[in-house]
């Protein structure tokens, strides 16, 4: 009963299935041949705001790309910069028989991966640092610290685990990351939390694999291959701003690749493949800039913009000016008259738009260096409606307790959230101790999916649907016992502790303003990442902190000591045993008692015969 409920909700939450696209493969098969339909995406992506933008729009081509940079000054004084690059390609990687082998804008390496492993959707993110929801609000594209990979395979794949294993190894090579450490011990198949973001109403989670590597360190060697996937590389367009020494000198850095099938045009008559590359950075300019709250493109990236990527059909910079309607808070120069409002994450935001395909954007200097100077203090930020935190409680090295706190800051609306926890096998969860309390009362989850772990084979998977009462904190606790590992299973620095991946909270949060449900309308890229189905609510995914848990750690010289000690003990025991067995025993003459000997001495002195 509960399961049915959650599936209904999950389908409602996450899938953007349009009824007209039930048979995408057929539609595309027909679509590739027809010239008339081919002109669809180019015309649609060229858009109304950028007439004749770039070379891509002039000739009708099956692929197009767009680039976009969103800059949002955060209330904490930090600057949030979010790059989005989208390549749309009107092709079908999963088409039987016909191999896709001629690439133009879409990177060949990823295309080959898609068709070889029959991938339906691929989402991969590398993140350094933790997104502080309470200070920064909701991110445009959420991601957990470390590496995260989730993949929907096509439902014709017979050996999903084999494909997954090979795919992780190949991706590890493409992105120079340690994704090859993904194996069955950190892979789960969530039943409800991760629904396809693109077209297709796959509900059979046998074809879904989800894994995180919370320990993964993200650095320039991951950024370089990521930049190589862009059509213009880092030579032109917004990507020139990506200098790694600046990007990694930041509080938060997250780069991601999302591939999914989407509607080709607003009628959704056929499908196209979307490659969305996102890069999100939070710069801490307040502390590094001697307390001055001002920023410029040059200060952040040590570069300025001079041109759009000539291959992109649209290339824009958005600056969030919602808090500054009258210009009383800050000055933005050069000023632009083009404003755009979009509903993002349940909030109506206003953006200044700089279109890089227009010559006048760059002015006389032929370069665009946005500068923002603060005039006054900004007000307090609205608390985000949903956020979560997690910690480990308990003492000693035997047992412990995981606490997850989920905050609903909405003053009067209750809403359900899906909580997903994937805990490694060496923390043995006592699932009978699972308690969910909100406002000191027990809050019974309406759906629980629990898959117990198997030692050295698979992790625990816990998924719950919890109703959050308005303006409340819901606490989920579960106790665990720390397992003893074999001495070869410890990491090289075992005293650092072992990471447990972030919990994932997926929710439909009630929106203050009406959400834009028309997915196909021309909108900024960042506002269309999660498809919205309902007007009254929007989808968010919140990641908690990863946990660092200490496990009982032996002294690693111990095996040798043990061997030496046992050998010595055995040798000593053996020695005495051997002696006992091989020595020759002789019967000794019993000696006279002491009294008798004394008597004899006296008798000798007296000259009487001895006894």
């Amino acid at each position, binding site marked *: 009963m509960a399961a049915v409920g959650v599936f209904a909700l999950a389908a409602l939450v996450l899938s953007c299935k349009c009824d007209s696209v039930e048979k995408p493969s057929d539609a595309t098969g027909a679509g590739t041949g027809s010239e008339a339909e081919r002109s669809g995406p180019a015309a649609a992506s060229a858009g109304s705001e950028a007439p004749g933008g770039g070379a891509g729009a002039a000739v009708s081509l099956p692929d197009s790309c767009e680039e976009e940079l969103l800059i949002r000054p955060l209330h904490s004084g930090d600057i949030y910069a979010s790059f989005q690059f989208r390549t749309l390609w009107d092709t079908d990687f999963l088409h039987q028989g016909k191999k896709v082998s001629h690439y133009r804008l879409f990177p060949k390496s990823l295309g080959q991966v898609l068709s*070889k492993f029959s991938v339906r959707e691929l989402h991969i993110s590398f993140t350094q640092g933790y997104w502080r929801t309470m200070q920064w609000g909701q991110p445009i594209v959420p991601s957990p610290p470390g590496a995260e990979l989730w993949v929907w395979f096509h439902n014709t794949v017979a050996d999903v685990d084999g494909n997954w294993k090979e795919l992780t190894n190949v991706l590890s090579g493409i992105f120079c990351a340690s994704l090859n450490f993904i194996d069955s011990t950190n892979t789960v198949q969530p039943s409800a939390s991760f629904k396809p973001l693109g077209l297709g109403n796959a509900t059979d989670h046998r074809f879904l694999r989800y894994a995180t590597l919370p320990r993964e360190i993200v650095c320039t060697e991951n950024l370089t291959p990521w930049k190589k996937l862009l059509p213009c590389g880092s030579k032109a367009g917004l990507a020139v701003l990506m200098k790694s020494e600046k990007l990694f000198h930041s509080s938060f850095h997250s780069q991601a690749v999302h591939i999914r099938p989407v509607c080709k045009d607003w009628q959704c008559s056929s499908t196209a493949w979307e490659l969305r590359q996102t890069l999100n950075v939070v710069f801490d300019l307040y502390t590094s800039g001697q307390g001055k709250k001002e920023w410029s493109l040059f200060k952040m990236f040590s570069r300025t913009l001079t*041109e759009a990527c000539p291959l992109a059909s649209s290339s824009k910079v958005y600056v969030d000016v919602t808090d500054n309607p009258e210009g009383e808070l800050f000055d933005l120069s050069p000023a632009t008259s083009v404003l755009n409002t979009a509903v993002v994450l349940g909030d109506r935001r206003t953006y200044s738009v700089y279109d890089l395909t227009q010559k006048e954007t760059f002015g006389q200097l032929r370069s665009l260096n946005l500068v923002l100077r603060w005039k006054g203090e900004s007000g307090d930020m609205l608390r985000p409606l949903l956020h979560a935190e997690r910690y480990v409680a308990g003492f000693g090295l035997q047992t412990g307790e995981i606490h997850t706190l989920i905050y609903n800051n909405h003053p009067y609306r209750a809403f359900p959230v899906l909580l997903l926890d994937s805990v490694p096998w060496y923390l043995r969860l006592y699932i009978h101790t699972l308690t969910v309390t909100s406002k000191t009362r027990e809050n019974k989850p309406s759906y629980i999916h629990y898959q117990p772990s198997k030692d050295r084979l698979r992790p625990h998977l816990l998924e719950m649907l919890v109703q959050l009462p308005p303006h409340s904190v819901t606490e989920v606790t579960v106790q665990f016992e720390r397992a003893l590992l074999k001495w070869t299973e410890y990491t090289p620095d075992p005293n650092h502790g072992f990471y447990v991946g972030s919990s994932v909270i997926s929710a439909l949060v009630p929106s203050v303003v009406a959400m834009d449900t028309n997915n196909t309308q021309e909108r900024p890229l960042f506002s269309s990442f999660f498809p919205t189905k309902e007007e009254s609510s929007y989808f968010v995914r919140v990641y908690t902190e990863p946990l660092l848990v200490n496990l009982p750690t032996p002294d690693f010289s111990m095996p040798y000591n043990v061997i030496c000690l046992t050998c*010595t003990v055995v040798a000593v025991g053996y020695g005495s045993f051997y002696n006992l067995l091989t020595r020759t025993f002789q019967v000794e003459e019993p000696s006279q008692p002491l009294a008798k000997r004394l008597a004899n001495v006296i008798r000798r002195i007296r000259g009487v015969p001895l006894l």
Partner: protein
Amino acid sequence: MAAIETEKQRGRYAALAIAAVVIVLGIPLWWKTTETYRAWLPFSQINELDSLQLQLSVEVEVVLSRGTLSPEQQKKVPLSQTREQEHQIDAKTVLRYRYETKYRTATIMEEDALNQPSAQEADLSLHMLSESACGSVVVYIIPETSTLLPADVKVYVGQRRTALLRAALFEGTAGLKEVLSTLEPQVKQVVDTMSFSHQDILAALSDRIRVGQVSKESLADSMRAIKSSPGYEITFSLLNPDPKSHSLHWDIEGAVNSYIQPLLDKLNPIANFSVDSQILYYAVLGVNPRFDNSVSAYTLNADSLAHVINPVEARLGSNAASSNPVLNFLLYVPDAQHSPLFIRDHSKREIPSNAFHSPRWGGIMVYNVNDMYGPEAEFPVDINISMSKVMGVFLAQLRLMLGVQKTQPPPGFVLQSAGSEGLADWELDRLMWSRSVENIATASTTITSLAQLLDQISNIVINDNIAQQVSSAVTSLQAAVAELEAGNLAFALQYSREAILASERAFFDPSLLHLLYFPDDQKFAIYIPLFLPMCVPIVLSLLKIANEIRQRRADKLAKKD
């Protein structure tokens, strides 16, 4: 006294028993528990393979058409001859060529076919009559008076596996033996052209044998050709360093289908090919071309070509989906500021194709577009690349890379240019001969070196699957050698490919990597606290017993004396 003696005797027996237990039970137990798992490998068969004795058998059919033999000579045919050649290449490599020549007279249908007006048509109709097996050669002897061939042409080699040889009419006086012996050198020349020559086979074995034995040209050919592999990835990349001025369009799909695919289909027995293409923007060459005022063009000298590839290669990306070797073909369209760009050879002359290739890597062609638009053109300019021009160059380079050499015909020979496939049947046969030999040599080298390695390092675990791969490689190798001997070229190639696959799988198996390796000195350092106190008393008491026995013997001898 007697009691003491029995007690001593008991002690001695106890020491001996303990020594016996340690030797009989303890040492085998220790050995068994610390040994690594090593599956059985067919070492003796591998050793046999190490000394490569290849016999290549070719079936040659010589068909004597009407007018070449006198009637009484004709009565003695059909007959067959076998000719063998043996070459001892080095201590471990012996090559034996065996030509089985069958002589027969032409059938009526063949006579009809030979009466066609031109050699080409005759070739086609002969092919319709009978299809000869892969690797075999059919030589038709036509009389001197035949009008099929122009006067100065002696031999015509067709598109399939047939050749026409013009021979002088033999007068009835000579016996058949003499006739055939005069024919033989000419037939041999034809067979060497159409099948394999000793130099080809030597070049295929160039990894095994010393360089001096191979002629320079065939060595260069074999070094240019990419190593034999069960599959190849062919990647065409269009480099557009200047997308702001040039918007390039290439119909690569159509070009591949019409130019490359027929050749690859033809080469299907040799390897699997997969073709893909990509467009790379802002990809630049590694060197700055120099501007030459005399021709008002940019030039790249032959010396600087070596530095062109490396920076580009970083952008090409490897094939994520397979581990086969990649052949890269790059089409470079110079940016508007650096056009036109010409490649010059060592003697400072411009190369007409404006292309070069890098051995075993691929080819690069420079395609100038500056004359396709005027100075007033609006950027970006839409340019359609003429694929026939490009593909002509790439196809020639591809043939070089795949080892399909242009055969240099001996004087008096006419080679029919191949049809749409770009490859005649006999050219394919030549390639198959050398590829089979190369595969066999490579696989046997891999297997023998693996066996050697496993033999030398006794700590490597050999799992059952490796043993299985090794034995399947060995059986395939033996089968390939046997098929070569029997003259079944197609099967030989098939088995040699299987052998190479199995041997590579065994050689690169990851389970061979985690070697359970503890150095002996460390191992014994750990064992010493156990071994030393245990062994010293045993050894000492054994010595003592031996001493006593010797003493007693000496006493006995002394008593006797």
